[in-house]
């Protein structure tokens, strides 16, 4: 999973979009040299495929299929980014934290997420103290266990209830609606 992070002049970060195995980062480089406006960070390590920019650019030139893929995935990412923008502006810290955990678990397909609170602070654009307190609350409610830098989701259904509606929309509605792919976690 890769998170696209916008970092302000003050050095405060917030996630603008997240990309899992359904997508790719840097697709538009296939259309020509681009400046990147976001920082790509990897919340949880895993296996990543990569291709050299020049090789990809040549492949795109020769393939309408790849061009179509870029178009479709761009639409998915755009819809998700709109939702995340609204979420970051309008939803509470606990709801956004729950949404982010669920999205991450779905995208990397693991029960156990090694994540520092400092990192979560950058993802969600909130103080590290706030992350600590929100995480503790979710733990008190029996939804997660957070020990030694590792988050384990204990109650998925409960966490989905704690999350804002953005989780359902991004994870289960945008992809099937636009591309007809369903990567819902079991």
């Amino acid at each position, binding site marked *: 999973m890769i998170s696209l992070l916008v970092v302000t002049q003050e050095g*405060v970060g917030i996630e603008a979009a997240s990309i899992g195995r359904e997508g790719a980062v840097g697709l538009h480089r296939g259309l020509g040299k681009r400046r990147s406006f976001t920082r790509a960070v990897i919340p949880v390590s895993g296996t990543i495929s990569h291709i050299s920019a020049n090789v990809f650019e040549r492949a795109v030139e020769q393939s309408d299929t790849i061009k179509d893929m870029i178009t479709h995935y761009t639409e998915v990412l755009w819809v998700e980014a709109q939702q995340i923008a609204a979420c970051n502006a309008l939803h*509470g*810290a606990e*709801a956004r934290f729950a949404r982010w955990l669920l999205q991450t678990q779905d995208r990397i397909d693991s029960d156990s997420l090694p994540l520092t*609170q400092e990192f979560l602070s950058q993802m969600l654009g909130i*103080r*590290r103290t*706030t992350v600590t*307190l929100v995480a*503790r609350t979710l733990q008190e409610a029996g939804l997660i266990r957070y020990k030694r830098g590792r988050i384990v989701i204990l109650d998925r259904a409960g966490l989905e209830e704690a999350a804002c509606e953005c989780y359902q929309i991004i994870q289960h509605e945008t992809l099937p609606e636009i591309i007809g792919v369903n990567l819902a976690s079991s």
Partner: protein
Amino acid sequence: MPRYYFHLSNKRCVTDPYGTVLLDKNAAMSHALVVARELMFNSPGMLGQRWSAWTMLVKDKDGKKVITLPFSEVPEGLTRH
């Protein structure tokens, strides 16, 4: 520089085991206000209780209470950052 710990208190307690290094008590108060607002922002409460039922307790490294901030006293209308 001293480390301050920011806990939430109600009938239940939600503790901050790590703390944050801050310049002094004034900085701790500023931090408490920022965190309180981040918690309250578009959120009705925590663990089934409205925010007005909660208090933030700031303690020093010896566990001494340095600041007591009821959420009901946090001024509204200020931006997140």
